[in-house]
């Protein structure tokens, strides 16, 4: 952490930097809060008068190399003693222009690009991109592909939430939890590897279905994870949920109200922690989520503990969904039998000239998608993950925009951290669970 003595002295951020208090009128200062809290002008002016003078506060810089900032998030903090007044998240350190890259990749290659955005839940990126392409094509994927997608999504949600458990524990100082979380996440990833061949960045969900059918013995691999995890989740309860020190660190910390969360566009566990029961799986069902039973977990206080508890219980709900999927996995094709969209089976290439041509065309030129634009959203572990896709009728997207939940959720940080202690800031960042890969894209 570096102390910034003078504006723009120690960094080269220029205008992106937090403006010092002397250059900021009281009205401007309250604009940030006032618009969210819907304060009247009189209330805002009164609140601004209670603000300390510039000589009482200090601007400091946290990150982008700070271990608790989950990668390369940088926060400019204004502190009065140990109390955080203003926070400004500065992002962009991982920006690699993936939306620009997407415009030069075909719809088939697009999956390899988007899967790297939210690297903790790659299958959701592939799912939302593939669904957007399928909506433009106006095709329906076979039932088995739908259920395979649901199975993988829910397993990915489990692994992503377990990663949260690990990093949350690490940030709070519960190092055992970090080890437990990584260990159990590995069990979830082992199943994903058995099915897709890769632990991460699978590129398994593709336009038209999935890349391959479930392998032999997938039920055994799944049974191993499903047998292990429930007991381990009980251990988490013993280790963390009921532990006084852990509750002290999280309860009443980083509170956000439903009104604020909705105004800021927050989704996922952050919104649900404020008591708003909004889950796209239930409220705007996609795949076959309207055919499985699960509960939407909501909190009451909107604090860090609620967000922890929601994610812990969402793991249990996801495992419940997985059990229903295992029982009801339909038979049939795992991808659409449309040779213009999906490549023919490898064996067909040796015996059919037509299959060879289709194979060649799909992998060199790609398939063409009719003109149009759609917005498709799924419930990722972090909230609403959307894809806005524009096609001009060629085989590459004209514009591909991902609506990353972490990017929008990060805007809640200044409101959650305001008035709290500097040390609680770490818990708050952790509870937002940002993945910088999808923030910066």
């Amino acid at each position, binding site marked *: 952490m570096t102390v910034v003595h003078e504006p723009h002295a120690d960094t080269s951020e220029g205008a992106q930097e937090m403006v010092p208090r002397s250059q900021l009128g009281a009205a401007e200062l309250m604009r940030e809060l006032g*618009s969210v809290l819907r304060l009247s002008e009189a209330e805002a002016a009164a609140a601004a008068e209670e603000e300390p003078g510039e000589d009482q506060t200090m601007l400091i810089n946290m990150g982008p190399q700070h271990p608790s900032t989950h990668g390369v998030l940088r926060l400019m903090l204004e502190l009065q003693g140990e109390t955080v007044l203003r926070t400004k998240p500065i992002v962009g350190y991982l920006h690699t222009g993936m939306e620009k890259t997407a415009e030069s990749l075909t719809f088939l290659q697009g999956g390899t690009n988007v899967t790297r955005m939210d690297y903790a839940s790659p299958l959701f990126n592939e799912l939302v991109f593939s669904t957007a392409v399928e*909506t433009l094509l106006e095709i329906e994927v076979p039932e088995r592909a739908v259920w395979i997608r649901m199975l993988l999504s829910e397993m990915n949600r489990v692994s992503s939430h377990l990663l949260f458990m690990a990093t949350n524990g690490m940030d709070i100082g519960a190092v055992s939890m970090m080890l437990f979380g990584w260990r159990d996440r590995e069990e979830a990833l082992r199943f994903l590897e058995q099915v897709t061949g890769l632990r991460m960045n699978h590129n398994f969900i593709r336009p038209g279905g999935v890349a391959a059918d479930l392998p032999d013995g997938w039920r055994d691999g799944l049974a191993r994870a499903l047998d292990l995890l429930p007991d381990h989740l009980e251990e988490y309860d013993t280790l963390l949920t009921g532990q006084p020190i852990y509750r002290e660190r999280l309860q009443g910390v980083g509170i956000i109200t439903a009104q604020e969360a909705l105004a*800021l566009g927050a989704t996922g566990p952050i919104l649900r922690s404020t008591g708003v029961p909004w889950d796209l799986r239930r*409220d705007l069902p996609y795949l076959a989520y309207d055919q499985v039973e699960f509960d939407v977990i909501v909190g009451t206080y909107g604090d860090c503990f609620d967000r922890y508890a929601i994610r812990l219980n969402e793991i249990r709900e996801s495992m419940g969904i997985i059990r229903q999927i295992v029982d009801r996995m339909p038979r049939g094709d795992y991808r659409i039998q449309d040779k213009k969209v999906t490549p023919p089976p490898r064996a067909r290439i040796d015996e059919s000239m037509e299959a060879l041509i289709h194979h060649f065309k799909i992998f060199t030129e790609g398939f063409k998608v009719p003109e149009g634009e759609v*917005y498709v959203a799924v419930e990722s572990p972090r909230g609403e993950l959307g894809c806005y896709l524009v096609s001009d009728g060629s085989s590459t997207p004209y514009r591909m925009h991902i609506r990353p939940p972490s*990017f929008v959720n990060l805007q809640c940080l200044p409101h959650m951290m305001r008035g709290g202690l500097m040390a609680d800031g770490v818990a708050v960042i952790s509870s937002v669970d940002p993945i910088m890969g999808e923030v910066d894209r």
Partner: protein
Amino acid sequence: MTDARTDDRGAAADVNPERQPEPEQVHGAPVTWSRGQRVVHPTGATYLDVIRGLIDDGFHVCVDLTAVDYLTAAGRALPDGVAPERFEVVVNLLSMQRRERVRVRVQVPEDDASLPSLFDLFPGTEAPEREVFDMFGISFEGHPDLTRILMPEDWIGHPLRKDYDIGRIPVQFKGAPEAR
């Protein structure tokens, strides 16, 4: 894959006038349908009023705000009375009560690439509007802090514009090896 059928119900109305004699409108702005999704097309002048009207209709959450540069695809389908411009700002709104989405597409001309900011209506558009400014150079009047968000502050150009080539910028790190 089925053939691309017409998505524009306004255009379909011309073919079959009995089914839909009047083009559908929301708060004075024409409405089209894209793959079953409702799209409203206000102008830059009526943009804020249409959004305010939609908020009154229950669309209380602004899910996403982004933009598209139609430099190389000018001939896209738009309803009557909407003149295509180079840029288009796309706002996705959500009504949790009605469990509905609506999309607002505004044409933004190249020579005056600016729109009023939605910050006062939806504080959550702060970061997305900065991203659009950064990537497309569209400015939002009334935005409290319109600076670059993803690119470095001293970056020249707006990368997601269609006339901004990929791979044009040499590696910026010191001591980078020469191009092979």
